[in-house]
C-alpha cells in the first residue's frame, strides 16, 4: 500500500487577489445567479453520463457578503497576489526543505462545479522538491502551492446550487506529498507534523474547516482519494478500512474472472413483476409513474453481498450521488418487501442461472436508464479490480463514493496577473526570519518547566508564543500550560494571568475562568466576580464565632470542618493556602482566648 497526503490550509491574511477580509460571514447583502459553460473533456471518463446529467442546465446562486467585492463576483480582474500570503507560503516551503521557483506564474485551474465564480481556481506553484522526516523515514513533498479558496456551498436544490462568496479567495497553501507512506500511523504523523509547521507561522486561520486533508491510497490498482479526512485520530482507521476495501475488490475481481463473469447490455423493464409488490419503495415509485428496470449480472452471485464481499454497496454508491435510492441486487433479495415469487419472475425474465445475479432500480424511466448505465460501467470495472475514485470519510471509519477521480488538471495561465520574480536575496531574507521548527519549540517550552506532553500539545495548537509571553511576564508555567491545554484557542489568556498576578483572584479559580471564557463569557466580567475586597478576616471571624462550641469541644481538630465551611462561603475566590493560615490563626486565638478567660 502506498499513501500520499494533500493538505490545504487557509491563511490569516487579506484575500489572495483582493483586499477583502478572510473570514466567514453570515451578513448576506445580495445575490446573483450565474451559469458556467463546461468545455469539452473536462470530465473523467467513468461516469461522464452522470456528470453531464447533473451539470446540464445547472444554475449557481452566489450570496454576496460584506467581505466580498467585485473580484469575488468575477466582475473585476484580480488584483496582484497578496504579498503577505506569498511570504507565508515561501516560509512554509522553506520549513519543508523545498526549493522556491525563480518566477511564480499564476495559473487558472478549470473547476466547473460552480465553487469558483470564474469557473477556475487560481493557483501558483511556489516550492518544489521538499521533504519531511518522520519516525518511519523520509517523505517527499514535491509541490507546495498557493491558491485561492473556493466559495462556500450553502445548499444544493435540484438544478440550483447556492454558494456564499465569504470564503472565496481566502489564501490557501496546498502541500502535496509523494505516495511515500506505508500505513495509517505514518500518514497521521506526517499530517500532524505538517500541521505544526503551518501553525508555527502563526499566520494560519484556525477553527473548523480551515485545514483540510486528503489522503491518497493505492494498493497497486486504482488510486483512491479520501477527501476531507480532517480528524487526525481517525486517519489510521480510514486508511486501514480503505486497504481492506481495496483488497476485497481485488478478490472479487479474481472470482469474477474465474467465473468468466459478464455484464449484459440489455435493460429490462420489470415493472409488471411488481404489480402487487409489498416493497414500499418500489410501490411508491410505480405509483408516481416510475419504472422498475433491471440488468443481468452473469457470474456475480455472492459477491454483491455475503460475509466478506460487498460489491452491491459499491454499485449503490455510484448511483446514490445522482439521487437513486431504490437500488436492489440479487444477493439481498428476497427482502425489503420483495417476495420470493417476484425474485423468481426476475430470474425467469433475465434467464439467470446459478452463478448469476441482477440489479434492479425503481426510478423515473430516463433516470433509471442512466443509472443502470452507470451501474453497468461500475460492474464492468469490478471485473478488473479497484477503480480510481474520490471518497468521503465517515465517522465510523468507512468511506463512501463521491465521484470519479478528476481528470488531469486543465490549467492555463492567468493572464490578468504578471508573473512574480523571486530573487535569492528575498528568499534569504525570509530564511533568516523563519520561525523555529516545532521540535525546537517543544524543547524551549520544556525548559520553561512544563511536561513534554503539555509542551507538545501547546506547540501543536500553535499556542507556544502565547504561553512563552505569559510565563515570561507572570510565571506560573504549569498553571498556564494547564489552562491552555484544557482551554480553547481564541481567548485572551494573557488578560487572565495578568489579573491573577495582580491578585484579583486565586489560582484555584483559573479552571473555572477559562471554562467560562471559552463558553463566550466576558473575561473581565468573570474576573470582577471574584471580588477580593471580601474581607477574609470577617468571614473567618463570623464562622469561628458561630462554631465556637465546636472549637471548644474539639480544639485544633475543628480546623478541617471549619475550613470546608469557609471555602464554601468563598467559592474559590481566595487562595486556599492563605485561608488555611488565617483560619488556623483564628482557631488558635479562640482556643487560647477561652482557656485564658
Amino acid at each position, binding site marked *: 500500500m502506498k499513501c500520499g497526503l494533500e493538505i490545504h490550509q487557509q491563511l490569516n491574511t487579506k484575500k489572495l487577489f483582493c483586499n477583502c477580509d478572510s473570514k466567514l460571514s453570515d451578513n448576506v447583502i445580495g445575490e*446573483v*445567479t*450565474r*451559469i*458556467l*459553460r*463546461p*468545455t*469539452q473533456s473536462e470530465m473523467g471518463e467513468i461516469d461522464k453520463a452522470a456528470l453531464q446529467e447533473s451539470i446540464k442546465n445547472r*444554475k449557481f446562486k452566489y450570496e454576496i457578503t460584506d467581505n466580498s467585492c*467585485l473580484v469575488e*463576483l*468575477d*466582475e*473585476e*480582474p484580480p488584483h496582484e497576489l497578496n504579498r503577505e500570503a506569498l511570504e507565508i507560503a515561501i516560509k512554509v516551503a522553506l520549513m519543508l526543505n523545498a*526549493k*522556491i*521557483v*525563480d*518566477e*511564480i*506564474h499564476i*495559473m*487558472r*485551474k*478549470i473547476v*466547473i462545479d460552480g465553487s469558483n*465564480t*470564474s*469557473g*477556475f481556481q487560481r*493557483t*501558483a*506553484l511556489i516550492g*518544489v*522538491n521538499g521533504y519531511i522526516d518522520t519516525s518511519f523515514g523520509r517523505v517527499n513533498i514535491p*509541490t507546495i*502551492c498557493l491558491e485561492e479558496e473556493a466559495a462556500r456551498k450553502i445548499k444544493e436544490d435540484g438544478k440550483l446550487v447556492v454558494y456564499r462568496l465569504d470564503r472565496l479567495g481566502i489564501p490557501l497553501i496546498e502541500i502535496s506529498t509523494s505516495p511515500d507512506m506505508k500505513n495509517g500511523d505514518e500518514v497521521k504523523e506526517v499530517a500532524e507534523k505538517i500541521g505544526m509547521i503551518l501553525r508555527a507561522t502563526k499566520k494560519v486561520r484556525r477553527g473548523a474547516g480551515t485545514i483540510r486533508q486528503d489522503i491518497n491510497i493505492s494498493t497497486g490498482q486504482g488510486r483512491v482519494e479520501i477527501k476531507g479526512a480532517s480528524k487526525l485520530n481517525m486517519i489510521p482507521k480510514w486508511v486501514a478500512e480503505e486497504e481492506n476495501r481495496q483488497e476485497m475488490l481485488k478478490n472479487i475481481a479474481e472470482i469474477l474472472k474465474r467465473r468468466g463473469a459478464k455484464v449484459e447490455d440489455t435493460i429490462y423493464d420489470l415493472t409488471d413483476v411488481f404489480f402487487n409488490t409489498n416493497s414500499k419503495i418500489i410501490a411508491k415509485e410505480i405509483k408516481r409513474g416510475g419504472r422498475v428496470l433491471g440488468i443481468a449480472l452473469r457470474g456475480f452471485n455472492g459477491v454483491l453481498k455475503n460475509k466478506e464481499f460487498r460489491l452491491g454497496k459499491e454499485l449503490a454508491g455510484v448511483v446514490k450521488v445522482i439521487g437513486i435510492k431504490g437500488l436492489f441486487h440479487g444477493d439481498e433479495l428476497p427482502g425489503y418487501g420483495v417476495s420470493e415469487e417476484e425474485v423468481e419472475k426476475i430470474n425467469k425474465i433475465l434467464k439467470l442461472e446459478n452463478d448469476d445475479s441482477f440489479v434492479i432500480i425503481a426510478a423515473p424511466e430516463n433516470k433509471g436508464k442512466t443509472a443502470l448505465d452507470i451501474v453497468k460501467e461500475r460492474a464492468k470495472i469490478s471485473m478488473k479490480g479497484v477503480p480510481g475514485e474520490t471518497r468521503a470519510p465517515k465517522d465510523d471509519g468507512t468511506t463512501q463514493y463521491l465521484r470519479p477521480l478528476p481528470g*488531469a*488538471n*486543465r*490549467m*492555463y*495561465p492567468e*493572464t490578468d496577473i*504578471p*508573473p512574480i*520574480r523571486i530573487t535569492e536575496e528575498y528568499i534569504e531574507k525570509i530564511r533568516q526570519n523563519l520561525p523555529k521548527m516545532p521540535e525546537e519549540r517543544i524543547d524551549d517550552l520544556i525548559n520553561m518547566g512544563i511536561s513534554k506532553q503539555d509542551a507538545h500539545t501547546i506547540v501543536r495548537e500553535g499556542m507556544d508564543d502565547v504561553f512563552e509571553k505569559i510565563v515570561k511576564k507572570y510565571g506560573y508555567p504549569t498553571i498556564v500550560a494547564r489552562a491552555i491545554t484544557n482551554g480553547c484557542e481564541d481567548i485572551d489568556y494573557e488578560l487572565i494571568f495578568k489579573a491573577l498576578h495582580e491578585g484579583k483572584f486565586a489560582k484555584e479559580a483559573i479552571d473555572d475562568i477559562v471554562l467560562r471564557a471559552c463558553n463566550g463569557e466576558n473575561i473581565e466580567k468573570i474576573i470582577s466576580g471574584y471580588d477580593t475586597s471580601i474581607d477574609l478576616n470577617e468571614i473567618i471571624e463570623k464562622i469561628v464565632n458561630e462554631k465556637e462550641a465546636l472549637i471548644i469541644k474539639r480544639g485544633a481538630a475543628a480546623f478541617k470542618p471549619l475550613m470546608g465551611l469557609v471555602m464554601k462561603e468563598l467559592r474559590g475566590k481566595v487562595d486556599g493556602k492563605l485561608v488555611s493560615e488565617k483560619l488556623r490563626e483564628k482557631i488558635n486565638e479562640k482556643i487560647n482566648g477561652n482557656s485564658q478567660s
Partner: protein
Amino acid sequence: MDNIEEGDYVEVITDKGTFKGVLLPKPKFSKDEIVIIKLENGYNVGLIPKEVRLIKKKDKKIKAEKAVKLEYSPDIPTISIIGTGGTIASYIDYSTGAVHPALTAEDFLFTMPEISDEANIQSEILFNTLSENMKPEMWIKLARAVKKAAEKSDGIVIPHGTDTMSYTASALSFMFEKLSVPVVLVGSQRSSDRPSSDAYINLHSSVRVAKTDIGEVVVVMHAGSSDDKCYIHRGTRVRKMHTSRRDAFHSVNSKPLGEIALDGNIKFFKEYKKTDESTELRDKMDERVALLYYYPGMPIEIFEGVLEKMHGAIIMGTGLGHVSSEFVNSVKGMVKDGKIIGMTSQCIYGSVNMNVYSTGRELKYAGVIELGDMLPEVAYVKLMWLLGNYNFEEAKNMLKKNIRGEMEDRRFLL
C-alpha cells in the same frame, strides 16, 4: 539552446534541481535570463537555467477536430456573423494557454453548438483588432460588409471589442438610412476562454435578436450581473459605463429598446423602427471633427489649437453645457470661420440647457449648438457623418435634430 524551440519537451538544469516540461514562449516584457516551462502537473514556472536540454521535439501541429458540423437548413433563418476581433471572438488553446482569435464560423460555434440549431450561420472575419484600434475608415469598411451581408442573410451579428463598441454602433446607425435586416453588435466583458464568460449568452441572444424585425443598429449585452437576460440597446443611446462589469453597457437618458431572456423571449420597452424592404447606406465620414473634454484651467491655446484644423467639434462641457466664459470670444470667431461647434455634457446623464446660466447664454449666442441629451461620443460620430455627407447648412440643422433616436425630448425619473 540551439534548435530548441517553443513547444519542445525539455529538461532545464538549475541550481535548484532539474525540471522537465514544455518550453513556453517568453512574455514580451520578460527582463532576465528566465525560461518558462509547463511542468507535467500543469503548472508553469519560471527558472534560471544553467542548461536547457532537448528531450523531445514538439509534435507537428495536429489541428483539433472541430465537433461542429455546419449544415444548411431551409427552415431556419440565416444569420451573418462579421468578426471584428475583441474578447468575444477568441478562444483558448489549453495546451499552450494562448488565446486565439476566432477565424471561422466553426470557431464561433465550437463552444456554442446550440446556435446552429436556431440559425444557419455564415461568417466572415473582417478585422482582427482590439477595439481601441478601431477608426472611422474601419467603420466604413464594416458598413460596406454589412450591406453586402444584408443581401444574403436575415440578420447580422457583429462581435466587437467592448471599449469602442458604442462608437461603432453610432457610426453604423447614422450610415444606414434604411436597413432590411437587424444589425446587432455584441461583445463580452469576460473572455470566452473562461467557463464564466458572458460571451455565450450575449452571442446566443444577439443571434436571436438578429432574427427579429428590428430595422436598427442595436447592441446586445448582459442586463445585470446575473446570467438571466440581456438588454437590447439602441445603437445611438448606449454607452460603456463600467470598466469591467458584465452589465457595463447602459442606455443613457433612455430605456433600452427591450430585453431578451435566456429562453429567447423578448420584451420591448420602446417603439423601434421596423426593417425596410431595402438597405441604404451613406458611408462618408469627415474625420476632421474633434471631441473635446473641457476641464477647469484648460488653457485657451489648447482649446484653439485642437480646433484649429477641424471642421467641427463636440465639446463635453461642464454641467448644463459650459466652458470658461473666457472662451466665448474665441468660440465666436471659430463659428464665424465656418466651424460647427456642438455642446454636450460631461455629466453624461441629463440634457444640456444653455439658457439657465449667463455663460451658457453667451456661448449659445456665440454660435454653439445645444445638443440636448445626446451622448458626447454619439454627437462626435454624428457630426463626422453629417459633414461627410451633407453641406454645411444641412449638417448644422441636422446635428440638433433627432434622426436615429439619438435625442429625445422627455426624460424620466424612473
